């Protein structure tokens, strides 16, 4: 094949350019550690990375939501522990008042204690955590529960801001996975705050010495205590469920990261080897080019 002088030069330049181009591509991959930095590097992988990153960001958010839910549940659990104690004490007092053998002074003392316990229950019902009321349903700001008193200041019942108080607080902890995290006034205290009414009735019975009244209240009060125990068990179950979801989200995170890495990350060892190879090609090309181009018949003419 006839080779012209210009050909040597252009062939050399073109091939050198190609090697440089490959080297540059490899270098930027190695520097970023990423095989896919733009869609054209691998269109299918790029689209895949987008999807995985979206899921990763969502999972991070779900984990944050889940942690807040756990804190809410834990706070509810603490409040319930004390609520159960109080209801238990009320139960004991009921039995005492039902026993006709107690004298008026003793009974007055019990009545006073019941007043105190009522106030404490209202306080517990109004518990807030991180600025949110735990037991008022959607009424998470203002105190949902209050004590109603007569003109003389004695407690006659409990009041509740009704609008939305039975609302279920939901938290997003997965794609289309909602977790209900609260207990409502009815869950805790029965229809129309029955527990409070019963305690007020018991106090009145203690003051008046009506042991029959007191006796008839023992069962409802026991039911009230059961209700609170059940509520605490439900919260315990909620916390378990939260643990389970947390574990699942943890697994999901690991899997997602593995998938992302597969799509996007560079196999460093492979890339380094490629780079070495191209580098030697470049060196060989450069030296042979210089060698060839300096040869010519001109050197041999006299």
């Amino acid at each position: 094949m006839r080779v012209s002088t210009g050909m040597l030069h252009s062939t050399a330049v073109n091939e050198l350019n190609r090697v440089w181009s490959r080297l540059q591509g490899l270098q930027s991959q190695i520097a970023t550690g990423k095989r896919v930095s733009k869609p054209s590097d691998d269109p299918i992988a790029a689209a895949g990375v987008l999807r995985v990153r979206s899921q990763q960001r969502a999972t991070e958010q779900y984990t944050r939501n889940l942690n807040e839910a756990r804190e809410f549940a834990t706070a509810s659990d603490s409040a319930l522990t004390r609520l159960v104690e109080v209801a238990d004490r009320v139960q004991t007092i009921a039995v005492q008042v039902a026993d006709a053998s107690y004298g008026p002074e003793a009974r007055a003392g019990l009545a006073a204690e019941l007043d105190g316990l009522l106030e404490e229950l209202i306080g517990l019902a109004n518990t807030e955590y991180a600025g949110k009321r735990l037991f008022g349903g959607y009424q998470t700001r203002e105190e949902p529960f209050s004590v109603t008193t007569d003109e003389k200041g004695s407690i006659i019942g409990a009041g509740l801001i009704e609008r939305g108080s039975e609302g279920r607080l939901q938290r997003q902890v997965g794609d289309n996975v909602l977790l209900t995290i609260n207990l409502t006034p009815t869950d805790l205290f029965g229809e129309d705050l029955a527990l409070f009414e019963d305690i007020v009735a018991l106090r009145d019975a203690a003051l008046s010495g009506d042991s029959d009244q007191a006796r008839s209240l023992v069962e409802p009060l026991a039911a009230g205590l059961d209700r609170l125990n059940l509520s605490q068990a439900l919260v315990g179950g909620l916390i378990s469920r939260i643990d389970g979801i947390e574990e699942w989200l943890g697994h999901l995170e690991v899997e997602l990261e593995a998938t992302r890495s597969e799509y996007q990350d560079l196999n460093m060892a492979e890339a380094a080897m490629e780079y070495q190879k191209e580098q030697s090609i470049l060196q060989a090309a450069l030296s042979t080019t210089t060698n060839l181009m300096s040869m010519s018949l001109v050197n041999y003419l006299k």
Partner: protein
Amino acid sequence: MAAQQSVLAVIGHNVANTNTAGYSRQVAHLVQETPTLGVAQDYGNGVRVSGVYRQRDQVLDQELRQDLSDLGRWESRAGRLEMIEGIVNEPSDASLSAAMDEFWNAWSELSSDPDDQTRRAVVREQGRVLTYRLQTMVTRIEQLGQDIDSEIATRVGEFNLLLGDLRSLNTMVKESTLQGEAANDLRDRRDLLLDQLCQLANVTYGEREDGVLYLRLDHTMILDEAQYRPLEIRRSQDANGQRQVHIVLPTGETPELASGEIGGLIELRQQTLPEFLMDLDSLATGLISEVNNVHRAGPSGVDFFFGTGARDIAVSAQVEATLGSINTSTSGLPGDNDIALAISGLRDARVMQSGTISLSDHWSNVVGRLGIASREATFQKDSLTLTSETLQSRRASESGVSLDEELATLLSAQQAYLAAVRIFQTAEDMMDTLMSI
């Protein structure tokens, strides 16, 4: 001797032009001089130069020009598509998909504490980021479109300049041909311009007997003895107020530019970019309507987003003015979060493509298609570069000057000249000897 001197002249010309672009080596064709016919025998009369010919393979030229035309198209496409990829900036954490994800996350965060003002502020901020990224992308793409516009104008200018030059060369070549000359150097220049022209657009050509080169662009004659039709650019606005660019001829025809740089740029401008902008727009309108539909149901009754598309999407004025107008629930109660949950849930909602894919999926499809187009363009560009280099190499093999070859020819011409001189001297000596008798 004279013949050998001519050969020397040609060699000299070749060597001088070894590195000249577009130069085809010339060869002096030596033939026997017409013999004198005698009675008993013919007497040879030596050698003469019958002509100086250009070493050129026309078929090869044609193949190469076709290649250059395709290469021109794919090259302009590959470069610009890579720029679009840069504007899109995916995958990354500062991209449109990241902004969308963070927007849904902000709503989810708000749903966990619907009454919190800080979280509302974050929702508004992420809304701003999202709308800003969309708007910026549109602006940058439109800017790219404008750059392409001026590039088209430049290239058309170049094209017309080349066309004008070819026209003048046609006149000169025709004159030379009439006078019986080969006009090698003029032809070389014409071929060089033709190479450049083919790179710009898909012209077809041929040479007439009188040496005039004629050119066609998509079946329309643009250069001939009498014809001369430079390209014009016509700008217009379509029904949507979008600017359109067309290449027209003075006769009013719009030739189809199937390849060449100008063709590639027109395709980008008229097809690729508008399609991409449309995809962005449908993403934006989907986002605006889906979010607003849910958001409006709350106590403030306002829209969260304002806008008709990607160009003007923004957080609504009411939300900008008052954080409180961000609705988290239909009831408006502090613990209720149904709207916040619903908006956050739009992340996966199938609201695009007649309800088959989500907003994010729509976008990752757009990104994927962009990647495929860019990859294809680069692949074609690389492969055509390779083939055109091969063809150019073959052309150089055919027409290029080889210094060694020329020098070898030089030596042999020198020898022949010396030999001729020698014979002449000997003949002279013989004559002298005869004279001195």
